[in-house]
């Protein structure tokens, strides 16, 4: 008997993002659909950034995880449109990011507070950071530099 779509979503919800393992792929909002097409399990994934090197690892991890649950016929579909937006990140994902020390995306275009000391006295160091999805900021009170998850 094949597992339900809900069951597959639950499995996918346990796969950590390879670059920010504190959140899962579903937290990130990049899994757009799970469906059965005939006997194939089709998982639709959208890239965060077109050149994100984690994309192929993410596909591999989805496939490995689902195989681990006994699925054999798995198809991964890339979907570019609608383009990924940080609006699709879950509330749980945002909280986990912040607890981990990465300021979650804000519509205003910058972090609302330092993830370490919660001060709002922060400044931008660079529009880019250690992965395509992050920028570098610094807190002017606790003086700690921190990553900010870019809002796109």
């Amino acid at each position, binding site marked *: 008997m094949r597992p339900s779509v809900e069951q597959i979503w639950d499995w996918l919800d346990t796969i950590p993002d390879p670059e920010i393992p504190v959140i899962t792929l579903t937290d990130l909002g990049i899994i757009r659909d799970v469906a059965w097409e005939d006997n194939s399990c089709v998982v639709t994934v959208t*890239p965060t*950034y*077109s*050149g*994100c*090197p984690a994309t192929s690892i993410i596909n591999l991890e989805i496939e490995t995880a689902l195989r681990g649950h006994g699925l054999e016929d798995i198809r991964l579909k890339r979907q*570019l*449109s*609608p*383009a*990924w937006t940080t609006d699709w990140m879950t509330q749980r994902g945002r909280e986990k990011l912040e607890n981990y020390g990465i300021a979650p995306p804000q519509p205003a275009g910058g972090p609302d507070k330092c993830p370490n000391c919660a001060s709002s006295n922060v400044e931008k*160091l*660079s*529009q*880019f*950071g*250690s992965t*395509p999805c992050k920028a*570098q900021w610094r807190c002017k009170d606790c003086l700690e530099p921190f990553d900010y998850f*870019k809002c*796109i």
Partner: protein
Amino acid sequence: MEAKFEALLRLGDNALILGHRVSEWCGHAPVLEEDIALANTALDLLGQTNLWLEYAGEVEGKGRSADDLAFLRDAWDFRNVLLVELPNGDFGQTILRQFLFDAFNLLNLRALTGSSDPRIAEIAEKAAKEAAYHVDRSSGTVIGLGDGTDESHRRMQDALNLLYPYAMELFITDEVDAEMAKAGVIPSPDTLKAEYDALVNGVIAEATLEKPEAHFGHRGAGKTGKMHTEHLGHLLTQMQWLQRAYPGNAW
């Protein structure tokens, strides 16, 4: 050659060659933050390259992958504008070139989101978000350096004098552009010029720079592949070295 294939090569090759040029800064930028920013910009451009050239290969229908197109063509088969193949020069020159390209790329991609070809529209939708971020950074840095010290101002003005005429190649419209525009696939580049001028003139003014007369370098020799600068060949020897030395090697 089919017009759509040709047009996709132009999109892909601009992103590829500029992406490679920008990646040459990796480990050499003046400060760590700029090093990371340049590498990220290059990464976005290479991602966009992959999407364009993958589709170009499908349209061509000869089984060529994005990698085949990137690594196994010679200089005369490249369709990028001359602007993006020029050597990096100093940091200011690299950033100014980036801004002149980013501004075009953003306007072009936004227009492409309305393409009659859904695949082109969806690639453009993805890439336009990245390009908007690039414009934000490169315009800010051009303003900071142009309206900076005497030394940085002088260097930015020199870079603008050198590069601005090359940027005009982006707006040359030929028969490929005309055919694509007529089919609603890709907007004619000359239709983007007014908006480009408004964006670029504003940033140049804020950077306290003066736009030079653009009287050469814009004959469209790069985008048609008729004649590239000698720099492209040198770039390819490095970019394509692995596949040339070890054909078919993969990891």
